[in-house]
């Protein structure tokens, strides 16, 4: 074997890690082995900085069939009905090449879901960009949305929701997260290469030099000018190949052919060969000459770490190999036997009859380095929290209202979601535009609600509180559509973990997320960590994106955020704190300030509100939670989408505080006039403050003392984003 010293640094391994590798092997690694370790021990694949903290998260509950550690979490949403739910990030690749970066991000999360044996049935795309006055950002937005649209639409999976948030801090580190929901059609798959003598079949696209060190290296090294050199390693997505891969695998899963199945993502074929064997205490002999290639003259190490898209590795009993190859032929997709499960605990790689790698599977998959990174509460955060939160009264309330409403963070995201097929499968009972999407599972009446939320601003001001607020809002959003929050997936986007303040933010977010999930009994079933979202030393806001999944009993009428008929009482549930303007959209857009403390959360009050919202399924004709933009925006959205105005009763105190405060644990509900007493009574029984603040109807938004015509509000809400983006270039 040709060995390689010092090279390890170029591959992102520290001298110390290199020593550990030598210790594992009892010798210096070969070139191929070094490459395999470099991808498997990268931050992206090994979670070496985050593992210790992630362990503290609650992961178990009555509905959780599979927790973290597999391709996706598995949740039982109704007796005998299980779904897969998982989020991933594709931030760096999307910055380098927005269209393909986002497209391959979708492809990756879909294969995660598929690896569990589930059919992917819905996608969500939480996005973060810089501000739209920058042409490069507009180009990124256009490319990312087009990439998600082109990939998701052609594999026939609806994109039913997401987020689009624009802040300076994301200008050079846009966040492209994607979450996917799947349903187990036949049987749950596991990534365990049981049974020595079984064979490994590589299914899908041919292997090229795509992303040699792509995701791993890209996602594990801070950006700087030299990143240009990494560009040729951009991976191009092939949605058609993915579609064939999905159908072929699902047919084979239904036939019960697979012993084990895993996707190839970051780390290429090194990942499933080591992880599947490590889990099963087996080994694998891989003959890489049998890996179908797209390019001639590839080195063994290139084949082992290539991140060519649309590939899966299946473990199959020898007797059923032909069946697998036949089904793949029918779906016009390539498949080859590339290895065999061995009783050893090692991954052996053979090329031209020569052993080019021979590594303990555990060393690659399980025994990577774990770092207790130094963390420290930064001094700047105390100063920041002391600063004026920007809650002073605006000159004119109406101007402030329109300023907030036309902020791209608030205005309708129709321009984005109309580019996504959000209807296929005839299951989207509620698509983009609501608090959460409601999906009816195929061939059944079981309904689940999904949403994603990640208030980076709050987390910047106070990572612990911000994370709790993120969990609370996501749970509230699914409760608004009548669902009981069940489980959480997440995507944790942070700066450089080698910096003590970033690591402190991370630890605080984990602590906050864990506490909130414990209180709301919504275990964390998995997720993804993306570090090094930092350019030239400038880190993004700590941005944990929470993906909440909830279930709705059969036969419950779909409930949206829109005012559905005139003369209905508008009930505000929950307490409004006039001082909850820190980090608010009002403070940012009207005063240009992001400072102070985020809104205060009483998680018990949140839990009571959620119970009430679920209980009000039969009575409430609409429900919507005031979040970014506060009551003013929530009321406006309900009016615009419902096509009818409202009139509020008079109020004393500073109106702008009441209207724009972003206090959590609140919701607006409407109901038939005869039901209002019952609604208030139930609120009282649940210990939730409730107050009738107005009635629906008319063609004006009647904020106490300030009437605004619905038509102009609609124009601004629907038009603002399109306007700012229209200068965007394809």
């Amino acid at each position, binding site marked *: 074997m040709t060995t390689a010293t010092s090279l390890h640094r170029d591959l992102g391994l520290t001298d110390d890690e290199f020593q550990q590798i030598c210790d594992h092997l009892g010798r210096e690694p070969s070139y191929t082995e070094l490459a395999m370790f470099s991808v498997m021990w990268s931050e992206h694949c090994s979670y070496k900085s985050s593992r210790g903290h992630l362990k503290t998260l609650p992961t178990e509950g009555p509905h959780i069939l599979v927790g973290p550690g597999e391709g996706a979490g598995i949740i039982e949403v109704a007796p005998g009905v299980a779904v897969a739910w998982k989020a991933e990030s594709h931030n760096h690749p999307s910055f380098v090449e927005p269209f393909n970066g986002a497209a391959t991000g979708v492809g990756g999360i879909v294969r995660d879901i598929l690896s569990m044996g589930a059919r992917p049935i819905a996608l969500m795309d939480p996005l973060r960009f810089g501000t739209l006055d920058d042409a490069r950002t507009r180009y990124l937005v256009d490319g990312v949305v087009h990439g998600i649209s082109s990939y998701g*639409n*052609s594999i026939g999976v609806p994109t039913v929701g997401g987020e689009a948030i624009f802040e300076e801090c994301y200008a050079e580190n846009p966040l492209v997260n994607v979450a996917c929901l799947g349903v187990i059609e036949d049987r749950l798959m596991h990534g365990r290469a049981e049974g020595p003598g079984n064979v490994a079949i590589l299914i899908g696209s041919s292997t090229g030099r795509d992303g040699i060190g792509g995701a791993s290296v890209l996602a594990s090294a801070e950006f700087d000018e030299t990143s240009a050199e990494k560009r040729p390693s951009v991976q191009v997505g092939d949605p058609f190949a993915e579609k064939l891969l999905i159908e072929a695998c699902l047919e084979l899963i239904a036939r019960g052919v697979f012993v084990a199945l895993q996707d190839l993502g970051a780390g290429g074929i090194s990942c499933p060969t080591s992880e599947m064997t490590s889990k099963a205490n087996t080994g694998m002999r891989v003959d890489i000459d049998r890996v179908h290639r797209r390019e001639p003259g590839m080195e063994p190490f290139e084949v082992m770490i290539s991140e060519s898209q649309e590939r899966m590795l299946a473990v199959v009993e020898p007797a059923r190999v032909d069946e697998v190859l036949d089904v793949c032929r029918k779906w016009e997709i390539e498949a080859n036997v590339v290895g065999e499960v061995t009783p050893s605990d090692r991954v052996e790689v053979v090329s031209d009859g020569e052993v080019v790698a021979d590594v303990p599977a555990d060393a690659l998959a399980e025994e990577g380095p774990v770092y207790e990174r130094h963390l420290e509460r930064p001094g700047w955060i105390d100063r920041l929290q002391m600063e004026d939160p920007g809650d002073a009264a605006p000159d004119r309330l109406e101007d402030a209202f329109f300023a907030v409403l036309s902020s791209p963070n608030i205005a309708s995201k129709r321009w984005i979601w*109309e580019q996504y*097929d*959000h*209807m*296929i*499968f005839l299951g989207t009972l509620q698509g983009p535009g609501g608090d959460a999407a409601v999906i009816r599972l195929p061939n059944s009446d079981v309904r689940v609600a999904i949403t994603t939320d990640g208030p980076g601003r709050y987390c910047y001001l106070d990572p612990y509180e911000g994370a709790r607020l993120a969990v609370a809002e996501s749970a509230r959003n699914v409760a608004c559509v009548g669902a009981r929050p069940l489980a959480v997936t997440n995507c944790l986007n942070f700066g450089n973990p080698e910096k003590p303040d970033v690591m402190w933010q991370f630890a605080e977010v984990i602590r906050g997320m864990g506490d909130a999930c414990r209180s709301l009994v919504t275990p964390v079933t998995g997720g993804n960590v993306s570090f090094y979202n930092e350019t030239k030393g400038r880190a993004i806001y700590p941005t944990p994106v929470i993906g909440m999944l909830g279930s709705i009993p059969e036969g419950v009428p779909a409930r949206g955020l829109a005012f559905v008929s005139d003369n209905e009482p508008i009930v505000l549930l929950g307490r409004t704190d006039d001082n909850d303007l820190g980090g608010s959209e009002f403070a940012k857009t009207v005063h240009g300030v992001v400072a102070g403390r985020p809104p205060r959360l009483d998680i018990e009050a949140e839990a009571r509100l959620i119970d009430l919202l679920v209980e009000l399924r039969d009575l409430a004709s609409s429900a919507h939670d005031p979040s970014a933009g506060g009551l003013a925006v929530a009321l406006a959205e309900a009016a615009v989408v419902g096509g009818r105005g409202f009139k509020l009763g008079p109020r004393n105190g500073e109106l702008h505080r009441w209207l724009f405060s972003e206090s959590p644990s609140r919701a607006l509900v409407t109901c038939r006039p005869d039901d209002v007493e019952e609604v208030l009574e139930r609120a009282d029984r649940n210990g939730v403050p409730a107050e009738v603040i107005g009635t629906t109807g008319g063609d004006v938004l009647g904020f106490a003392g300030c009437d605004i015509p619905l038509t102009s509000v609609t124009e601004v809400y629907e038009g603002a984003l399109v306007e700012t983006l229209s200068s965007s270039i394809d």
Partner: protein
Amino acid sequence: MSGRVGIVVFPGSNCERDCEKAFRDLGAEPVMVWHGDRVLPDVDIVVLPGGFAHGDYLRTGALARFSPIMSAVRSHSGSGGLTIGICNGFQILCEAGMLPGALRKNTGLKFMCRTTRLRVANAETAFTSRADEGQVLRIPINHFEGNWYCSEDTLVSLQAKGQIVLTYLENPNGSFADVAGIVNEDGTVFGLMPHPERACEELLGSEDGAVILGSMLDHVTKRVAV
């Protein structure tokens, strides 16, 4: 009411299950037909569903027209059987020359998924008998290449022969003469960009799609009865 419906599945089709559900809910008997087969099962109606038949690389529907099943589809419609091409199916029918014109990229150069309002321009066809002339239907579109084109002369003759069946009230994609759906001269082959199968259930926002799918079933069950 019955009616045997053959839904052609190309490798990249993705609306076949939706079509199956919509037709079954209307009381029909849908069966899936693999594009690689050379013969159709005994069916009254053939559906070319939406999707990306072969990834829609090069041109939408460009490769699908060469699928073995397509000659069987031709003779099916040749002998009076009904064929409907929805979205990608419409594109395939144009590429295959079974319908006039071609479909280009939307003028907005964006994929569009939204509910559109359609006017029934001809209610005398086997695909619109349940509608009244001029009736407005709310049915979603879902495409990047729905911008239908044909020559002026072709358009004139299509109009003269009542082959233009559906037009957009608000043209979303630049389609020539607001055309959303057309039939062939015999009235046996119907191609449209909107997805009727997505509008057959009140829960999904509209039941107007059932007007089209139901008309087809009326037609074939009548024929069967005779």
